[in-house]
């Protein structure tokens, strides 16, 4: 909303410099965004909050200023006009869409230019001056907030005004020269035959007031805010009038504003009013009186305010206040539909005084009945663990395209669709984090960044639900430095290492990796809690990723959140020496190290305290179908020094069973 300071001066003598006034208005809830100088005037651009349509005009803002500076508000008196008894034809068909319609016909008007002062003020409001008649309607809108419209009465077929819904297929060319398709959700003003205006939004070209116009019909009305807003959105059309109707105009001002405009009309354009009609479903808004306990308000604000001051402020804001002492009876003016009770009064008073002048205190915060989210705490830890392993955290868009889902081969997963997507790029709630992370990989590849270690703690969305998952993606080379700069590509084991490290650090049982159908499952206590593996060539090709090695792991955090860390007990540090035996064997490739490990543990019992994997080798050095495994077994007792003689039979037995059970050849 624009506010002209010259215009404001007509209403209230505030005596403040523009910058100071801007600050006071801002601190009373009407933020002044900018101050412009237009033709010797200072014009504020003010952001009016949606609850205050009454401030979308100069009078409304002047009322606020008068309360802020505690100076009287004066409304310019106009010449009184004689309202004729003869009626014009106004019919409201849709009585819920139009609560009031005032029409007046003026004859013998002379279309001319507006007086200078009107032109200047409209210029300050950013509105072009057209002619005296049209300018008067705009002047009225910016003066008191009531949108007005004038029709060329001679062009209204049958001289009739009908407020009705548009018919299916009905069309109108609006004042901006655009032909618009109407439908029954749109309210129109019609004459005997056709729509002549889109109610509350814009008039039609056919009935526009021109230089030749002799008779006009002035319209001042109240239209349903929601209907106007929806029609405007549907038509992609807005106007200063629509902006005010959408937010709600003052029902009691409809005729007052019409009479002010008629008075100006006779003054500027001559003519005489021949008929007048005020059709009202409702003429006023009934405001309820309520009581305000000043003690209670003082307590709620944490600052005591005197009843005298409250009366003064509310009086300036056109509230009716009565009652003595601490208990006041208050009634808001008709244009303040935002005021409903004592709590609203506390805001009125405090914003006019200024929040900055109210007291400040520190609340006594008691222990909460709500406990801190374990999920949040665990995510904190996960971030720490993963960044410590060189992974960067990504946060990606949860809404993705159909294409991204198909490219990731997850189109068979059930998905949720947004009903009103903004674009096809954000049509679906992602069913997998992989699609999001591959887009991230793609972007980085395009920027030449090929070595990526990324994770995201994000949500995926099965139909009508959501769950948190951890996604990890690795690609490119292992971390290098200038001393170790052998280029090695990451592989499955890098990813497994990271996954296991998470469980280890959090003190959970360690998961095992189990070969599944398409991926390798991460299993803990027989339950699958995630998967990992190499992203298939197909998918990489779909995403146009020029790499063979992109690894991905996903952990279902909903299951993860249920895990409990093992109870840790201190193990005393033993000073007894340990004995390490290296073992090198050749076995068939289908024998897993896990099998060997559990056999060794079973035989080694309490003496075998650790098995350290050293190396696996395949290829030339070993027979086809076989693999070489090197590992060490660590024997130690916490009670005494173990002798070679004690260890030898155990170790021998392990080796023997390895050959017996798995056909291992000891090398």
């Amino acid at each position, binding site marked *: 909303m624009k506010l002209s300071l010259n215009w404001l001066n007509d209403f209230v003598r505030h005596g403040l410099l523009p910058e100071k006034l801007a600050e006071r208005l801002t601190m009373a809830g009407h933020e002044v965004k900018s101050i412009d100088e237009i033709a010797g005037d200072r014009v504020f651009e003010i952001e009016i909050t949606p609850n205050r349509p009454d401030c979308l005009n100069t009078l409304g803002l002047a009322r606020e200023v008068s309360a802020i500076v505690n100076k009287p508000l004066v409304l310019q008196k106009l010449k009184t006009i004689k309202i004729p008894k003869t009626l014009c034809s106004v019919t409201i068909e849709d009585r819920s869409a139009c609560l009031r319609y005032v029409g007046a016909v003026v004859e013998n008007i002379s279309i001319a230019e507006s007086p200078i002062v009107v032109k200047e003020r409209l210029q300050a409001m950013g509105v072009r001056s057209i002619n005296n008649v049209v300018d008067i309607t705009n002047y009225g809108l910016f003066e008191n907030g009531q949108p007005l419209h004038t029709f060329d009465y001679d062009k209204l077929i049958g001289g009739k005004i009908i407020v009705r819904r548009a018919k299916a297929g009905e069309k109108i060319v609006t004042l901006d020269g655009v032909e618009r398709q109407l439908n029954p959700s749109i309210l129109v003003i019609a004459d005997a035959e056709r729509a002549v205006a889109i109610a509350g939004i814009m008039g039609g070209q056919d009935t526009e007031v021109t230089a030749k116009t002799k008779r006009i019909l002035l319209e001042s009305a109240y239209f349903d805010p929601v209907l106007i807003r929806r029609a405007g959105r549907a038509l992609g059309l807005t106007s200063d009038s629509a902006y005010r109707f959408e937010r709600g105009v003052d029902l009691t001002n409809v005729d007052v504003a019409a009479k002010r405009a008629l008075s100006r009309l006779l003054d500027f354009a001559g003519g005489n009013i021949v008929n007048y009609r005020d059709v009202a479903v409702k003429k006023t808004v009934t405001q309820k009186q309520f009581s305000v306990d000043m003690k209670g308000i003082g307590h709620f*604000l944490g600052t005591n305010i005197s009843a005298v001051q409250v009366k003064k402020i509310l009086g300036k804001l056109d509230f009716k206040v009565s009652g003595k002492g601490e208990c006041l009876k208050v009634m808001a003016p008709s244009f303040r539909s935002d005021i409903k009770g004592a709590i*609203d009064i506390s805001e009125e008073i405090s914003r006019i005084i200024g929040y900055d002048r109210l007291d400040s205190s*520190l609340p006594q915060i008691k222990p909460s009945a709500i406990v801190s989210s374990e999920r949040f705490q665990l995510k904190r830890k996960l971030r720490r663990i993963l960044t410590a392993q*060189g992974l960067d955290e990504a946060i990606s868009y949860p809404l993705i395209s159909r294409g991204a889902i198909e490219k990731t081969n997850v189109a068979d997963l059930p998905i949720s669709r947004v009903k009103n997507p903004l674009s096809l790029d954000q049509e679906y709630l992602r069913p997998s984090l992989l699609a999001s992370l591959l887009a991230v990989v793609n972007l980085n590849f395009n920027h030449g960044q090929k070595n990526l270690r990324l994770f995201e703690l994000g949500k995926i969305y099965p139909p009508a639900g959501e769950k948190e998952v951890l996604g990890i993606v690795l690609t490119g080379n292992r971390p290098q430095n200038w001393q170790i700069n052998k280029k090695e590509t990451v592989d499955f084991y890098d990813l497994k290492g990271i996954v296991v490290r998470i469980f280890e650090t959090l003190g959970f049982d360690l998961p095992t990796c189990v070969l599944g159908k398409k991926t390798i499952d991460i299993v803990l206590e027989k339950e699958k809690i995630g998967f990992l593996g190499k992203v298939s060539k197909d998918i990489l090709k779909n995403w146009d990723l020029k790499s063979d090695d992109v690894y991905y792991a996903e952990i279902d955090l909903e299951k993860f959140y249920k895990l409990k860390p093992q109870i840790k007990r201190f193990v005393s540090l033993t000073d007894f020496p340990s004995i390490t035996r290296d073992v090198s064997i050749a076995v068939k490739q289908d024998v897993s190290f896990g099998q060997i490990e559990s056999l060794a543990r079973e035989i080694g019992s309490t003496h075998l305290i650790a098995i350290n994997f050293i190396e696996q080798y395949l290829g030339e050095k070993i027979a086809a179908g076989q693999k070489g495994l090197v590992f060490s077994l660590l024997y130690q007792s916490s009670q005494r020094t173990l002798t070679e003689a004690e260890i030898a039979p155990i170790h021998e037995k392990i080796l023997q069973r390895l050959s017996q059970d798995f056909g291992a050849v000891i090398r």
Partner: protein
Amino acid sequence: MMRWDFDKITQEAIKEITACDDLKNLEALRVKFLGRKGLLTEVYSSLPTLSAEEKPLVGKNANNFRNKITSLLDERRILLENTSTDIVAETLDVSLPGIAAPVGREHILSQIIEEICSTFENLGFVVQDGPEIETEFNNFTALNIPADHPSRDSFDTFYLETPDPEQKDRNLLLRSQTSPVQIRLMKQFKPPFAVVIPGKVYRPDAVDASHSFVFHQIEGLLVDEDIKFSDLKGLLTAFCQRLFGEKTRMRFRPHYFPFTEPSAEVDISCYICDGKGCSVCGRKGWLEIMGCGMVNPKVFEAVKYPKGKYTGLAFGMGVERMAMLKYGINDIRLFFENDVRFLKQF
């Protein structure tokens, strides 16, 4: 005439040794004077060729020289060892980069969320979260947003194709604010409580440098029997001064939110220009950083709290905006693109 002028030789040796400032050169001097092919060996090996009267004199001078030089060399070595390090002997380019285990970065938005949440945790708040898929009741109705309010339109809120199980004629939606978590918590718990709630929110805004259809908010709620408007001012002042520095000045500007009354927007003095006006604050000297207010009694009514029993304060802030202000980031899309060059900067 004697073949060696020990006085002169000693003088020169002393000069050389005291001028020497590195262990390597000092070792070279030791070899020169005392080594197997050095001066002293030369003197001793020539002793048999000398005359009988020369022999004891030269021998004595040579011994004095050896003692003197040995102790000088020792002194110098100790001095040099204490002023330098042993590895001076290696060729070390100390300007080469050090080697450390590779480390990753938490996303800048996570870092800001962490900073804000932990500040509130230190003030006695707990952190909570809630779902992104919400009902119209929790996202709007319970928050005193009227049934025909524009924010409920499909222009301003993403709806899913899935119907709301509790209200079959309505569809589920993607929350447009973190406030529905307040409703969920209040439906479940009785005051007192103090919570902060970080999370993603969605609004159908076309993506450009300053708009995103998804962004992060942090919401706070403190409810008890006697929370005052002055508490709101005090609490948020304490928060801002902890986050932005002790000298930060604050401004509470009246504003409008349906779920709070009175409502305010909080401005802090611009920490770039200290309130003088610069490009970051748009020459205003103030930066708008959050919205807040006293919980509207209608909200308590919606969660069926006894009438008039509780009061509360609530506040909310945009995480992306905080990060953009704090680091001068000029494009909101950067947060979601995850270019590692961006991620590694913070």
